[in-house]
C-alpha cells in the first residue's frame, strides 16, 4: 500500500476527528458541570446547522462569520433551556432527565420537519471543495478550518474555566454542589450559564459541520450517538478528553476503512468504545467517580 495513501488517510482521520471532538465538546462541558446528559445534543447541532444555512441563504454570511451570531443565540437558548426547563429536574431521578431531554430532541426534529421539510440543505462557499497540497499530501480546507476552530474553542474554554472568576465558580459548582451553595454561589444560575456555554459550543460545531455534510432534520440522532461514543472514550466532563476521543474515533474509522472495509468503519468506533469501557470505564482522560 503506498505510503502517501496511508499519510493522506491519517491526515483526513485526524482532521475529521478534531471536528468530531468539537461536536462532542458541548456535551462534555454540560455533563462535567451540570451532571445532566444532554440527549438532545445532536438535534441542537442540527438546529445550529439550519441557522447557518438560513444566514447563508439570507445574507450570504460565511459559516465562519455565522459562528458569532449562531453561538450567541445558542448561548441564550441554552441558558433559557436550563433555567426554565432542566433546573427543576436536577434533583429528580436520572430517568426523568433522560426522558425530558429525549422529548426536547423529538420536538426539535419535528419542528425542523414542519418548518424546513425533509429536504437536505447546504451552503456553497468557494473553499468548500478546495484543498492544499503538500507534495502528495492533501489537506481539505474546510476540515482544516473546522479543526483549527475546534482547537481554538477548546483553548478558549480551557482558559475561561481556568483563569476567570466565573469559570472558577462554575468549577466549584461542579466539584461540590453543596459547598458552592454554602459559600453563596447561585448554583442554578451557574448551571444555566454552563448549559449556555455548552450550547454555544454545539452551535460552533454546527456552523462548521454544515461545510462538510448536508443538513436534514433526521441528522441529529446519529450525531448524538457519535458524541456519546466520543465523550465516553475521552472521559465524560473532560475537555481535552472530548478532543482526544474525537481524534481517536476519527482515526480508527479512517484506518479501519483503509485496512479492513470502508463499510465497516463505524463498527470500529463502537469496538473502541467497548474496549475503553472494559479497560478504563471512566474514559481515557476522565476522573474516577
Amino acid at each position, binding site marked *: 500500500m503506498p505510503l502517501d495513501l496511508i499519510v493522506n488517510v491519517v491526515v483526513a482521520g485526524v482532521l475529521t476527528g478534531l471536528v468530531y471532538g468539537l461536536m462532542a465538546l458541548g456535551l462534555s462541558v454540560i455533563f462535567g458541570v451540570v451532571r445532566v446528559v444532554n440527549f438532545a445534543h445532536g438535534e441542537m447541532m442540527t438546529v445550529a446547522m439550519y441557522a447557518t444555512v438560513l444566514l447563508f441563504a439570507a445574507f450570504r454570511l460565511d459559516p465562519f462569520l455565522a459562528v458569532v451570531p449562531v453561538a450567541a443565540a445558542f448561548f441564550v437558548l441554552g441558558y433559557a433551556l436550563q433555567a426554565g426547563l432542566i433546573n427543576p429536574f436536577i434533583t429528580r431521578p436520572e430517568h426523568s432527565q433522560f426522558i425530558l431531554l429525549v422529548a426536547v430532541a423529538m420536538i426539535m426534529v419535528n419542528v425542523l420537519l414542519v418548518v424546513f421539510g425533509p429536504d437536505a440543505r447546504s451552503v456553497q462557499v468557494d473553499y468548500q471543495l*478546495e484543498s492544499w497540497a503538500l507534495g502528495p499530501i492533501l489537506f*481539505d480546507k474546510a476540515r482544516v478550518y473546522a479543526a483549527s476552530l475546534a482547537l481554538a474553542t477548546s483553548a478558549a474554554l480551557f482558559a475561561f474555566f481556568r483563569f476567570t472568576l466565573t469559570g472558577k465558580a462554575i468549577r466549584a459548582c461542579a466539584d461540590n454542589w453543596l459547598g458552592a451553595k454554602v459559600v453563596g454561589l447561585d448554583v442554578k444560575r451557574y448551571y444555566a450559564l454552563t448549559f449556555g456555554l455548552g450550547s454555544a459550543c454545539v452551535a460552533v460545531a454546527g456552523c462548521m459541520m454544515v461545510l462538510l455534510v448536508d443538513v436534514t432534520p433526521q441528522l441529529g440522532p446519529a450525531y448524538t450517538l457519535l458524541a456519546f461514543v466520543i465523550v465516553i472514550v475521552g472521559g465524560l466532563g473532560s475537555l481535552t478528553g472530548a478532543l482526544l476521543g474525537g481524534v481517536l474515533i476519527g482515526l480508527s474509522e*479512517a484506518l479501519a476503512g483503509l485496512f479492513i472495509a470502508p463499510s465497516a468503519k463505524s463498527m470500529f468506533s463502537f469496538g473502541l468504545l467497548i474496549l475503553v469501557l472494559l479497560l478504563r470505564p471512566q474514559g481515557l482522560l476522565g476522573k474516577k467517580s
Partner: protein
Amino acid sequence: MSFDRRRFNQTLAAATISSLAPFGIVRAQSSKLKVGVLLPRSGVQGFIGQSCQKGADLAPAVLREMLGVDIELMNADTESNVDTARTRAERLIQEGAHVLVGAFDSGQTAAIAQVAEQRGVPLVVNVAAAPQITEQGYKFVFRNFQTAIDLVRNGLDLIGDLFLATHTVPRTAVYMHVNDTFGQAMTRGIGALLPRRTQLPFKIVDTISYDPAARDLTVEISKAKASGADFLLLVCRLNDGILLRREMVKQRWNPMGIISPGSPGMYEEQYFKTLGKYSDYSISNVPWYNPKAPLTKIVEKAFLKQNPKDKMVFHALNVGFTFEALLVAADAYKRARSTDPKTLADAIRQTNITSKMTLGAPIKFNAKGQVEGIDSACVQNFGGIPRVVLPAAAAETKPVFPAPYFKKT
C-alpha cells in the same frame, strides 16, 4: 288471495330491496380505487421519494382523463426505513387500500411485498431492482422495473456502446457501491455478467463498498484514487453520490469519468443543485422515459401544471415508473370493474399496455409478476441537465468521454 301480515312484510322487504338496488349499482360504479402509495419521502432517500411522489400526484387527473377511472391516493412515508415501510403498508391495508404502489428502495419494497402477499392485496412496484422481490413465488406482487441483473446487463452493454461511440479504450475501473440491498444485488449482477462481456476492454482493479448513511467518504475516495483506475464504476444513491463527487474534487481525483451501470443519484435534481458544474459529465445508464412518446407529452403537461417551477427531466425515471405503476393499477381496475384484491391481481396479471411512457417493450407481466424488455438509456449530465446520449435513436446529444477534466492519476 288473502293479504295477511306475513305477506305484507314480505312485499315490503322486497320493495325495499328493489328500491335500494339502483343506488347500490350507482355506488359500485362511482367507487374509487384506493391506492396506497408508499415512498421514502423523508430520511436519506427523501429527495428521491419526493421525486417519485410527483409521479403519483399527477396520476389521478391524468388517469381520469385517459381511462375514466377515479383514483384516491393514500400516501404514506416509509421514512427510508424498512420497518416503517412494513408498518405503513399494514396500516394502509387496514385503512382500506385496494392496491399498493411503491416503494423505490429494494429493502423497503421487499418488506412491503411480504405484507401485500400475506394480506392478499396487490403491490405494483414502481422502482426497486433486487431480483428476489419477484423470485419468491408471490401471487400479489408485480414489478414494472428492471431487476438488478437487467439493469447491469443493459448498463454494461451501454458502457460498451459508449466506448465505441467515443473511440476510447479504458483498461481499468474501480468499482464503488453502496452497501445495501440494492447495492449488493447490483454487485452480484456485475460479478456474474462482467466476465462474460468480453467486448468490454476494462477489468475491475478494486471494489469498495460503503455505508449508505455514510457521513464521510474520504477514505473510500483515497482508496479509489490510489487504485489508479481509468474510470469510476459507481452504484450509488443520491446523498452518497453527492458526497463522493465532492470528495473527488477535494482530493483532486479526475478519472476519465464516472459511470453508473444502473443506479440513481447522478441524474437527480439535487445532484445538480448541490454540485453545480461538478455534476457535469457524470454518466448514468438507467431505465428512462421516451421523450417522444405521446404519453410522455401528456404526463409532462400534467407535471408542469402541478410543478410550474420544476422540470420533469430531473424526475424522469421516478415520475415515469411511478406514474406507470398507477397506470397498471387503474388499467386493471377498469377491466376488473371491482376493487376486490384477488380480482384486481388477476386483472393486473392480464395487463398489456402498449402505449407507455418509458423505453422498452409493452407492460406485460410474466408468470413471476415481472415485466420483461424494459430498456435503459445512457444519460450524461451537461450544463445542469441530464441528456440522453445513447442509444443513438433516442440520443439528444453526443456523449463526451473522457470528461474534459480528465487527468491521469
